[in-house]
């Protein structure tokens, strides 16, 4: 089995969010970049398939050279080789177009992406990619088993979960649940040393549609002072008469 894990390099979850250039760009200064948490669950599941069922695991990222430390970390966790499409990931449609090219060339059986990246929250790359290639797609995936060319996946739905079956080749949008949090792999020294020798191939982007453009950004209005309340009577009264939510 050949697996491609799509990795998005995103600001660490504790990052303060600011914008520059007249609120048209995300301010990366002082921001630490990490593997998108949803992708990290997928990467660990891919490593499970590699160890238990024998699979080759590649990673792919669309981004400029600055994303390479994040990719090296994914290689240190155990991916075999990496592909970086040398382009600014302008929108989900464009990124899916780039990854589609890689999937076509690499003939992957399984493509694992994240449900969404925690920066732009687009939630569309795996789905568009699957559709572009005519592959099966399962989103918000919290469980995945593969036997031969048949996959059984569990996906989270509003208020519960659903089990689905589909043949490979398959694309999933993964998230927490794909593996236990305690099983997430942290690169060890040996992994880090080995990652240095692994291939990180850089390819040029292909022509692809950019469907959307983030024109400007702003931040939520600063919060007013919290009203501290002494009793539940007062709280119920405020929720009814002031906030009008009950």
């Amino acid at each position, binding site marked *: 089995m050949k697996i491609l894990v799509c990795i998005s390099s995103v*600001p660490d*979850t*504790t990052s303060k*969010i600011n*914008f520059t250039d007249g609120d048209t760009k995300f301010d990366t200064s002082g921001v630490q970049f990490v593997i998108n*948490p949803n992708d990290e669950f997928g990467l660990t599941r891919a490593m499970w398939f590699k160890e238990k069922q024998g699979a080759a695991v590649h990673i792919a990222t669309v981004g400029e050279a600055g994303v390479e430390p994040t990719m090296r970390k994914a290689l240190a966790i155990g991916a075999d080789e990496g592909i970086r499409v040398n382009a600014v990931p302008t929108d*989900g*449609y464009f990124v*899916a177009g780039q990854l589609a090219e890689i999937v076509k060339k690499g003939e992957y059986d399984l493509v694992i992406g994240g449900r969404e990246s*925690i*920066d*732009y*929250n*687009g*939630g*569309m*790359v*795996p*789905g*568009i990619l*699957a*559709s*572009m290639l005519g592959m099966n797609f399962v*989103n918000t995936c919290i469980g995945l088993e593969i036997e031969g060319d048949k996959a059984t996946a569990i*996906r*989270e*739905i*509003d*208020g*519960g*979960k*659903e*089990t*689905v*079956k589909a*043949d490979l080749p398959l694309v999933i949008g993964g998230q*927490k649940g794909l593996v236990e*949090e305690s099983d997430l792999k942290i690169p060890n020294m040996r992994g880090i040393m080995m990652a240095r020798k692994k291939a990180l191939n850089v390819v040029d982007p292909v022509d692809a*549609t950019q*469907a*959307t*453009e983030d*024109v400007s*950004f702003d*931040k*939520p209005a600063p*919060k007013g002072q*919290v*009203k*501290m*309340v002494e009793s*539940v009577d007062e*709280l*119920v009264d*405020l*929720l*009814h008469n002031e*906030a009008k*939510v*009950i």
Partner: protein
Amino acid sequence: MSILVYTESENGKFKKNALEVASYAKAVADQMAASVTAISFNASENESLGTYGVSKVLNVSNDTLKTFNAEAYAKAIAEAAEKEGAKVVVVSSSANSKFLAPILAAKLKAGYVPNVVEAPDSTEPFKVKRTAFSNKGFAHTAIKTDIKIVGVSTNAFGLKEDQTDASVADFSPELKEDDFSVESVEVDKVAGKVSIADAEIVVSGGRGLKGPENWEMIEELADVLGAATACSKPVSDMGWRPHAEHVGQTGKPVAANLYLAIGISGAIQHLAGVSASKTKVVINNDPEAPFFKAADYGIVGDAFEVVPKLTEKLKEFKAENE
């Protein structure tokens, strides 16, 4: 020209988000001098969408579509969009809509923007405001393709009545066996419980509750309020509550009208997932808990004392106000 809206239903009845996306579609239609066409699947009471500005409903009655299927639904919606010459397609933020929207985007070669919180800033260029950076910011995003897909954030736009006469027509999309290649084998839903995604009120508990045995208190409070229950990440990590209840940056986003956080410290990753909620109430025994800074109302106190009292008070309030 028309704006097409996908209205979700369950057991034939429209979900609340269907009425919200219809309201949104009507606002877009007014800005573009267009009308709203809805597509529904196996729904009864299709005329009722007229209350929210829908003038035409294409209802698909098809037993093979009783269970949601992203590919087949997307194909049907794409066919309806083409037939109607729709320039904008509006969907909700449910798990199902977020599943089918990217597939639909590829089929229609349309740009898709999820998590939209307001009617478009402008329609030429078509620009919408959406949340980004896990609710720590907003982006104003222009969609540059001929057809546009907008995913409306739950509870962000609300229901807006605009009485219109809705005509209902049967619609039979052309579906093939291939469209069902991802096959649903089992749907496992907790019956009668409000889901976080649909909820107007969410009662959420954190590690401060000490153990799963204390959740009865949370459920009772949620019951009185008709609310969904939720939790912080460590609570689901420790298996006190199911993963599906974990809210936050790496869990579910909550855009409720009222979010009650009980025994939750208010870490940045948790706040990111709840900041889209309108009114936040925090109950915590630590007056320094960071959550108070993000709250509208706060009570410093022991959850084990405050919550049962609050539940009692709300029961009285309900009895008086119903």
